[in-house]
């Protein structure tokens, strides 16, 4: 037997394109977040409330990732923000190449903030760097309070946790304190927001924090 020593990261191709994306974002002074969660936790609703808050004061562009349909891009198009839909046709995550390609059809003039809404999936998107400044993970109260323990990678890789649907707390089997503590055991440096897209509670706290980071 002869042995060839390789020592190469399996996802090095993705990481290389992600570095290219990141360099482009930094050149344009563009703050980029990668919004991740399980399906149905309210990523698109948070995005809508965020666009309402910025109300063209800060120009925001959106990349929508979905397995099928452009329903989410249609929802976002109402807010007069540049939006491009990536349909992965079964793919479980966005990768840096898909984002790089999508950037080609996005008008970024004047845009300060780019929000990438990933495919709803708490597993695979955590492995793929897109070139973003940070991952923002959304966990909703209807999913229960043990999600961070079940999907630790995603919570480890995120910088921000948005606990969404807090208006439903009286009706669901979820303790806000347990959810928060579980997340902080996995990632003690997580910045946590608690929101409801229905009552708009917590939206201005999240948005003003995001605005500060965008202007940094």
């Amino acid at each position, binding site marked *: 037997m002869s042995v060839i020593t390789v020592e190469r990261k399996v*996802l090095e191709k993705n990481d290389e394109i992600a570095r290219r994306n990141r360099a482009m974002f930094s050149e344009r002074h563009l703050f980029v977040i990668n919004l991740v969660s399980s399906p149905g936790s309210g990523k698109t609703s948070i995005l809508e409330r965020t666009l309402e808050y910025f109300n063209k004061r800060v120009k925001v562009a959106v990349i929508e990732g979905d397995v099928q349909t452009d329903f989410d891009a249609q929802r976002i198009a109402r807010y007069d923000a540049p939006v491009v839909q990536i349909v992965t046709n079964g793919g479980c995550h966005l990768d840096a190449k898909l984002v790089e390609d999508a950037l080609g059809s996005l008008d970024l003039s004047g845009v300060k903030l780019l929000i990438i809404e990933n495919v709803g999936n708490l597993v695979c998107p955590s492995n793929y760097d897109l070139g973003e400044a940070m991952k923002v993970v959304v966990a909703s109260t209807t999913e229960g309070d043990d999600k961070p323990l079940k999907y630790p990678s995603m919570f480890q890789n995120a910088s921000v946790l948005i606990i969404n649907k807090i208006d439903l707390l009286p009706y669901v089997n979820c303790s806000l304190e347990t959810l928060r503590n579980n997340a902080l055991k996995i990632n003690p440096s997580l910045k946590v927001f608690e929101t409801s897209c229905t009552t708009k509670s917590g939206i201005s706290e999240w948005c003003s924090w995001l605005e500060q980071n965008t202007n940094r």
Partner: protein
Amino acid sequence: MHELSVAQNICDIVQQSVPKNELADVRIVRVKLGTFSGVVADSLDFCFSAISAETPLAKAHLEFEHIPFAVRCNHCQKTFENDIGFMVCPECGGAETVILSGRELQVTEIELENEEEKTI
């Protein structure tokens, strides 16, 4: 479930690392796999054999080195391991910790069968 694309990346790396006329001699591809690499070894193994079948790599298989999730506490400097992803120090409760390992997904070595072994 992105093991199929991960397996494809591994095939690409092998093809780039081994001369074309020796690809059929590849027997073992060693892969470092961290507890939180995000891929399942059995599933990756299955995907690799599915895409390498009927290619020069048909006789190759994956061999995994499992790497534990290890964290160092910046407060008490102790190192601890766990397979649940906790990053708070179990000794002193410190929250300022650094991940030392457990995220690996890396091809480390490729083993080939030599000419003389084949003729035996």
